[in-house]
């Protein structure tokens, strides 16, 4: 849906917190890479207003069903709504930004 810059600004005010969940399954190179990529993207574009939760499916397998996880790693944007899923090691920053709907400015 198209929104103007003013509206987005207002929205950001309300939904100031970006709640992100990263699903991994053990400390695999892909997972480590994905977390590093996510951290750097957040630091650049969402500095001070993001929270990353990491769920290791090996430790809590029942969560895979709840969030319909198939691919590893999977990043879920819980807030702001709507829920968005990005799969892969997040190596393509541009795609991640589009996927998370972050405006790079």
């Amino acid at each position, binding site marked *: 849906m198209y929104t103007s810059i003013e509206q987005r600004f207002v929205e950001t005010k309300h939904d100031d917190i970006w709640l992100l969940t990263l699903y991994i399954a053990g400390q695999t190179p892909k997972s480590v890479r994905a977390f590093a990529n996510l951290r750097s993207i957040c630091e650049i574009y969402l500095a001070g207003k993001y929270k990353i939760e990491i769920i290791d499916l090996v430790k809590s397998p029942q969560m895979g069903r709840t969030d319909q*996880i*198939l691919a590893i790693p999977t990043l879920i944007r819980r807030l702001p709504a709507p829920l968005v899923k990005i799969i892969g090691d997040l190596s393509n920053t541009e795609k991640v930004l589009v996927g998370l709907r972050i405006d790079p400015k």
Partner: protein
Amino acid sequence: MTTIDHSSPIGQALKKCPTGIQGLDEVTFGGLPLGRTALICGAAGCGKTLMAMQFLVNGAVLYDEPGVFMSFEENEAELAENFSSLGVNLNDLVQQKKISLDYVHMDRSEITETGEYDLEGLFVRLDYAISSTGAKRVVLDTIEALFSGLSNVTILRAELRRLFRWLKDRGVTAIVTGEQGNGTLTRHGIEEYVSDCVILLDHKVVDQISTRRLRIAKYRGSAHGTNEYPFLIDDQGICIMPITSIGLNASASKMRISSGVERLDTMLGGQGFYVGSSILISGTAGIGKSSLAASAVDAACRRGERCLYFAFEESSSQIVRNMKSIGIDLEQWMSQGLLQFHTSRPTLLGLEMHLVNMYKKVNQFNPQIVVVDPITNMTAAGNFADAKLMITRLLDFLKLRNITLLLLDLSSVNHTEQTAIGISSLSDTWIALRDIELNGERNRGLYILKSRGTAHSNQIREFVLTDHGIDLLDVYTGTEGVFTGSARYIQVEKEKAQRLLHNQEIERKRREIDRKRQLMETAIADLKVTFEADKDDLEKVIHQEEVRLRIQDKNREQLATVRKADDMK
């Protein structure tokens, strides 16, 4: 690239995992390969999900093997709803931890792909489901949905290969389903990963009649039936009938049963039909084939045997009503559970399905007598050769179970001694009913054209339907020909009159003899009287002569004395 199962010594046959699906275990000689993955593929709506779910439910209920159903198409609620119509309560089984349902939802529009990934999430979920229920059986329905959810085919293929390897390593017996592709078994070629067992399901429509079929395209390391087997989906799920495997090794019974018509039993060597034989009753329309069958059914029920009646022309109530008119009450046997009717139009199902249906009903009801009324209509559901084949298989199947089969065949007027689907050579006993047209009347004649193993009568009998059942009468066979009906009656009367005449003649002759004897005796008496009279006269004369002689002698003596003659002595 298969590893040898170390638990089984080399040379031992492949271990099987029974599916519990009627017939499938027979054609696979025991079930699916244990601990391996089987692929079920076919077009939409041909029963893949059902077969897979039945495999799981049977495992959980019959073999105490829990299962995991991972669905990529329907969610848990939909699955439970769909299978409740088969009398399976999935929710109960889920609660008892016998079955785990896992719905995998994928929406391409929600997902962005960036960089490398794998499907470890799927593995973890599957692993969790398997270990939390202790599952021995796994179904992935339809795994190919992954191809529409994820775009990186290279990763997908690699992960699928890993998945099947992983399933094998876990030692679970798995079924994956796949939609039929264009020229390939599955749309995305997953058959190349599943190499142990491939089952094809099909839904053929021939002459507007559809038949579901199953074929085992591949079963590595095991013998299996290779034909296309028709199968049925009904309120108990899938039922496959591997009828073609039936051989000619039924043992023949020496027991006899009554045909329900006393004189017919007499004609059949005095004891009726052999148990487990097939009896063909042929005749033109309205001749009384059904009535003859009904009296056999009635007799069987009277003995407490169960009868199964497949009617392809009339409804059961119609048959019951009609038989009542000849004094056969079939209703009582129905209410006692000894008689079951199954009525359907031949065109309702394909021939194969009819056969599968009959097979199923016979298995359920376990009858001693089966009636098919009539077999001729089967050609409406298939061609001549197919119908013949079908009846052959039915015949073999019932013979194997020692069930007596009555086949009714409607013959055309011009070919009364030829059955429409040419099965006369297959049946053991052939009773032909025929119209005998004479003097403007049609009368029913009954012949036994053949009866294997019995000393049967070669006589024609007149077949009469009365209000107390069937009567067989002798037909008039004399010097003047064969008569039935009123002609027979007239002929018999004529004969009676003639006999009367003959008797009178004999009587007359006898009287003449008497008269002659009397005449003779009178003559003898007369002669006797004459004789006596003559005798008296003659004796009188003899006496006079003797007296005269004596007097002469005396006179001569006196004369001598007078003359003083010498003594003469």
